[in-house]
């Protein structure tokens, strides 16, 4: 006999997080959180120089520019930069995602000035050496080809291409394609750097997040001295456009000689800063975002034993987004798994219970402190709050915000963002179109 579960009162669980905001003379925003648990400091420069601004035919340019920041500067070779930071057990890494690119670093407290000096060197004085670019391009092209051996990555990329549409700035992976990476020149990189790297005054500001064992006032003095005269830039959008739903299901099969079928089903979805995001994520928690407790997992894994993992996800960017439901299953069971995904996507639009909503709300409220219990997570959440323009009273408002959501709002999110009759479907595996029984589907070559 099952024992009734204990029900918790929704008490305030959030601990105070003191995020200090300072603006340097050139407009660069510094978000800092002092924490003295460990003798380490993390820094992240967030610059709106992600792959969304890659020109058509030069996909991968933003990523190459970003990677080149640490491949040599006015005063250091790439090797010397690596030696300088790693000789103190630290790390300095470039990163390039769809919207933001930048540098992240971590050091033990006594070495913080060294990290800041090296970050400035990389951001202000990259030399964009021709030989280094040639080497980097070879590495990146090899990486892209290696990703072609992973059915998960192959399917994910094909899905974003088909769902965003050819030419859309989000349709490609930040790494780009081997055919476009090979065309990027040092001039392209220099031009892009001049255009994108700096604290812009546009709708997406550059900012710095620092978390760790520092004193706030000393931090601001140091950053003002090193970065206060960084010339401002303005970044503009290139090819972002809305991606309409198909009129009927559209499918694509990518042949691979493997025992499973990797399935991706969905379309474009809400972007960052969408006002109904909280309702949408609660809805998705119930649908396919909560692991073993979600409806999709319950149906596909628990009831039918078809897959190890099945889920639904929203991927959100500043100017666009994706919804995708995915599963990997034995190839003979692909059709059954796809039918189950479609059924669950349709069912939640009209069949949502108060119990499920209550459960999801309890989860999101209770789980909140776990999303910033390490320095790294605190830096992530701080950046997210800034990018989404959530306001730094977010910590205080969070519980009320989630509690205030009603079942109607969550149902409305399902009605708005879920479409069981019109979607894109990508399958990687040894599958033929006739294996998949979907009325009216149009298969692409």
């Amino acid at each position, binding site marked *: 006999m099952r024992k009734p579960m204990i029900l918790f009162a929704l008490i305030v*669980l959030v601990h105070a997080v003191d995020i200090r905001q300072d603006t340097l003379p050139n407009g660069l925003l510094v978000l800092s959180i002092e924490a003295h648990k460990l003798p380490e400091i993390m820094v992240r420069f967030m610059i709106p120089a992600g792959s969304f601004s890659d020109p058509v035919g030069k996909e991968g340019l933003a990523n190459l520019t970003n990677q080149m920041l640490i491949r040599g500067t006015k005063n250091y070779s790439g090797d010397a930069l690596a030696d300088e930071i790693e000789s103190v057990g630290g790390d300095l890494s470039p990163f390039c995602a769809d919207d933001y690119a930048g540098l992240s670093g971590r050091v033990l407290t006594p070495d913080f000035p060294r990290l800041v000096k090296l970050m400035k060197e990389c951001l202000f004085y990259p030399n964009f050496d021709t030989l280094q670019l040639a080497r980097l391009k070879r*590495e990146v*092209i090899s990486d892209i080809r290696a990703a072609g051996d992973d059915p998960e990555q192959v399917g994910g990329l094909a899905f974003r291409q088909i769902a965003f549409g050819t030419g859309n700035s989000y349709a490609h992976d930040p790494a780009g394609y081997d055919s476009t990476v090979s065309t990027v020149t040092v001039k392209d990189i220099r031009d892009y750097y001049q255009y994108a790297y700096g604290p812009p005054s546009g709708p997406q500001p550059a900012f710095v997040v620092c978390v760790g064992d520092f004193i706030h006032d000393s931090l601001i003095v140091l950053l003002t001295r090193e970065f206060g005269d960084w010339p401002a830039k303005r970044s503009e959008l290139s090819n972002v456009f809305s991606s309409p739903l198909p009129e009927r299901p559209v499918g694509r099969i990518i042949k691979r000689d493997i025992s499973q079928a990797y399935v991706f089903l969905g379309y474009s979805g809400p972007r960052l800063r969408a006002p109904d995001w909280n309702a949408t994520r609660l809805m998705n928690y119930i649908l396919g975002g909560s692991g073993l407790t979600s409806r999709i997992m319950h149906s596909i894994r628990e009831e039918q034993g078809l897959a190890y*993992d099945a889920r639904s996800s929203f991927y959100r960017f500043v100017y666009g987004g994706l919804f995708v439901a995915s599963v990997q299953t034995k190839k003979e069971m692909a059709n059954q798994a796809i039918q189950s995904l479609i059924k669950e996507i349709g069912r939640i639009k009209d069949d949502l219970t108060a119990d499920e909503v209550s459960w999801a709300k309890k989860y999101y409220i209770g789980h909140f402190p*776990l999303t910033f219990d390490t320095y790294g997570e605190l830096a992530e959440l701080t950046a997210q709050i800034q990018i989404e323009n959530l306001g730094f009273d977010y910590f205080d408002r969070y519980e009320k915000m989630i509690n205030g959501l009603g079942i109607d709002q969550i149902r409305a999110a399902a009605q708005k963002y879920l479409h069981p009759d019109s979607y894109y479907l990508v399958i990687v595996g040894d599958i033929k179109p006739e294996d998949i029984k979907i009325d009216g589907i149009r298969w692409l070559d």
Partner: protein
Amino acid sequence: MIQLLLFLAIWQPIKVDKFVLDNGLTLLVYEDHFAPVVSAQIHYRVGAYNEPKGRTGISHLLEHMAFKGTKKHGPKDYDRAIHEAGGEENGFTSTHVTAFFANLHKDRYAIELDFEADRMANLLLDPKEFEPEKHVVMEERRLNDNDPYGAFGEEFDLITYLYHPYRNPVVGFMSDLEHITVADVKDWYRRYYNPSNAIVVVAGDVEAEAAYALVKKLFGKLKGSPVKDEIFAEPPQQGERRFEYRKDVRMPAVGIQYHTVTVLDPEAYALNLIGTILSQGRSSRFQREVVREKNLAVNIYAYSSTAKYAGTFYLFGIPQAGIDVKTLETEIENQLDRLKTEKVTAEELDKAKRLVMAQTIYRQDSPTGIGFTIANWENTTGDWQNINRFPDEIQKVTADDIVRVAKKYFIKDNRTVGYLLPSEKSEEK
């Protein structure tokens, strides 16, 4: 050297309170009051190592079945209770451990421990739940098979260890999964799931005495039944082993694996530093020379894996486009030969030590991560405090030690070399 001294000045030993209940259950408490969060974990000293022929994957299968209900709770109750409390839960199985954990607000970690005490004594192992779950695990087996690099790594252990159970894949062989019955799993459960074979870890915003009182209350009445590992020894390797592994891949790969030493062997520290010198960070030899200067590899790493009863040193590389696997293999051999003939400089050795030891500080950022780490040291070495001896032992390693250890282990007769190559069908494409 100055940098190293500076590090030793700021490094603080990890503090853990250890308790052992009368029934043999070990409790480790790590206090971290940064956030109001606790990671509550239970680590059973059983995994792929313990599995006999024909039963590979049974520990992992039992891990799955642990989420399928007890005499007190239905199959969904556990996940729901943890989620309603805002927690995140999971389990994992490896060579020597089957573990379950949940991270929760500090006021709620008792929920996890309450469920774990129940799962330790009262798992239902319902035949109706068993068959579908076995199919889920078989899908996990297929996922592994479809990951060419993961499958290649599994093949490596099968050829490196011809006899020792370290050859067992954690997820099990497909034919074993097909034949394992619910009765087998029940036997496994009765044998290994009891207090004397478990380590409970409570890491986060707790007081040690309060955690002890709670654990004693929940687990104290359960009966312990000590289990001893059977000990196996792999016969010494008497010559190089080579194999080809073919999959639907576009990028081939090469791997080389040497037999080495156990986790507490004095030479384990030099091997750890060799792995760091070769491949940790952008300034490592592999990244600097093999990837950037010579453009031979897109991905390459070296890793010393010293376990409870044996160890290996594994090197893996994916050649850059236009480079064949043999060329990369030769480069890796040359790099190893250099370690045998040229002493590493004081700067390079200091840098490696600093990188290794900085990781010991960074790792303390996460209560979950530090919980896993202390449980692993307790399980594999018998004493979590070995983690605090680690910096001193790393510090003692000299450039001569690196040469000596490289000469001792990186010899042809002691290695297995594998090539991951495109299958004939994918080559035709």
